[in-house]
């Protein structure tokens, strides 16, 4: 449900992402989700990992600007319309979604989606009330 996301500031220059992934690999940190939001000038790498605190420290020590943010990881049926149902739930209840992305290699017939919402508490309660309460398997 509630998970900690690590975000990292990256200048748009060649090899930066490779450096970060190499660094994480060297520290035996495996990625459950990875996505990049980028603009013309910079990018923000977002990660879901098993040990967010350690991952953040590894990144900070290597001189990156990194921070933790709470997000919602929602396990849903892997079938058409599953995402639409959650979106509708949020929309009806005025929970604003800043962004979302999917988690790598969903297991079995479940698909995991990460939501960054404005009002985390509210989003969390809504999901629970509506039966989305399987914890994320990291």
């Amino acid at each position: 449900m509630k998970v900690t996301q690590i975000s990292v500031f990256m200048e748009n220059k060649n090899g930066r992402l490779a450096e970060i992934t190499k660094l994480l690999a060297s520290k035996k940190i495996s990625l459950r989700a990875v996505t990049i939001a980028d603009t013309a000038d910079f990018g923000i790498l977002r990660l879901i990992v098993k040990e967010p605190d350690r991952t953040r420290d590894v990144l900070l020590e290597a001189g990156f600007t990194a921070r933790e943010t709470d997000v919602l990881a929602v396990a849903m049926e892997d079938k058409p319309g599953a995402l639409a149902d959650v979106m509708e739930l949020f929309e009806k209840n005025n929970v604003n979604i800043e962004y979302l992305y999917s988690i790598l290699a969903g297991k079995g017939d479940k698909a995991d989606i990460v939501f960054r919402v404005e009002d985390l508490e509210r989003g969390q309660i809504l999901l629970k009330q509506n039966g989305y309460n399987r914890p994320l398997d990291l």
Partner: protein
Amino acid sequence: MIWNAVRESEAPEKRRTRQLADLKDLVARLYNRVPFYKERFDAQGVKPSDIQSLEDIAKIPFTTKDDLRETYPYGLLASGEEEIVEVHTSSGTTGTPVVDAYTQNDMDIWAEVMARCLMMAGAERGDVIQNGYGYGLFTGGLGVHYGAHNIGCNIIPVGGGNTERQLQLMRDFESTVLTCTPSYSLYMTEVAKEMGLEMADLKLKSGIFGAEPWSDNMRREIEEKMYLTAYDIYGLTEIIGPGVSNECSEHNGLHINEDHFYPEIINPETGEVLPDGEKGELVFTTLTKTGTPILRYRTRDITWLERGECACGRNLVRMHRLLGRTDDMMIIRGVNVFPSQIENILMEIEETQPHYQIVIDRGQSHLDDVELRVEVEPQFFSDETKQLERISQKIATAMKNKLGVNLQIKLVEPKSIERSMGKAKRVIDKRTL
């Protein structure tokens, strides 16, 4: 405390009388002994006897940095070579170095004016001065050193660099006064944080910062992070090194040791002398030196002068902290911009720190493209692009409103802008004009 109250609080008329006597003596000495000056005077049709009042100094030709380079090494020597006891040269990053050759008389002046400066910043006998200015040809380190010995302070001659050791010494020997460049002091606080050292636990009371331009906002940041009072010191190798002027406890400008270094403010374009209070280029005449004294040296530094009694008890003329340099002044699409202005604006924006670099290039449109690189500090980093874009826009708007020019803002990773031990590289100009 005042190191030399007789001179630093002297009645203005009495001071002017001695300044004139020293000026006449200096002009006669240089005319007779230094062919460079005799040629300059003769070319202008000026004779030493034309100097009858302090205002007559305006008749004397200026000396520039190029003059110093062309006469390297000893072309401006006014004493016998055997009288020189120490030589310093300025860093020759942009060409032939300039030379300051000191006689024993000049060394005594240096120790005197530096003692005054240190005391203006609160140093007394019993203080432990940690000197983070580089020792060697650079005048910063030894200038502070001689002044500290003159007062009788305990000096720790650590010089620049090796920041962890600096901080350990500061803690173990309970340094009370720190002397270094302002940017290095901020770097120290970053290293202290990494070491787990609390600046608040140290004994520092004063910091004497110079050798590079800095702003009032940067002063506030240093004072907050280092738990000390920051003082601005000014000097240049061509005149004597550090010791030309320093801030006192009132922080209302830097008292110039004007009985030794006679200041003028001129219009940099016409050379005309400007009245007190008007901004222009600072010009110095070293009234009392004997090794390589200099007449009307154009510093290229922009400031203004203010006279009168100061609450600290001194009445030495004050120069405002530097506004910029005539050669650092960037002309961007016809607008004059000083790096210090950009720094001030960044300090006023709550999310940003003054860690920046300006890159000027001439774009395809043949207009000047200016990129302002600002480091993304952990405290303003967000996981949302729109937040970062909002800050970037906020910086751009503030720059446009206050400078009148459009700058392209580029957010960069922290510490990707070089933090130097000595001078920070703030401006990269790629224009080929």
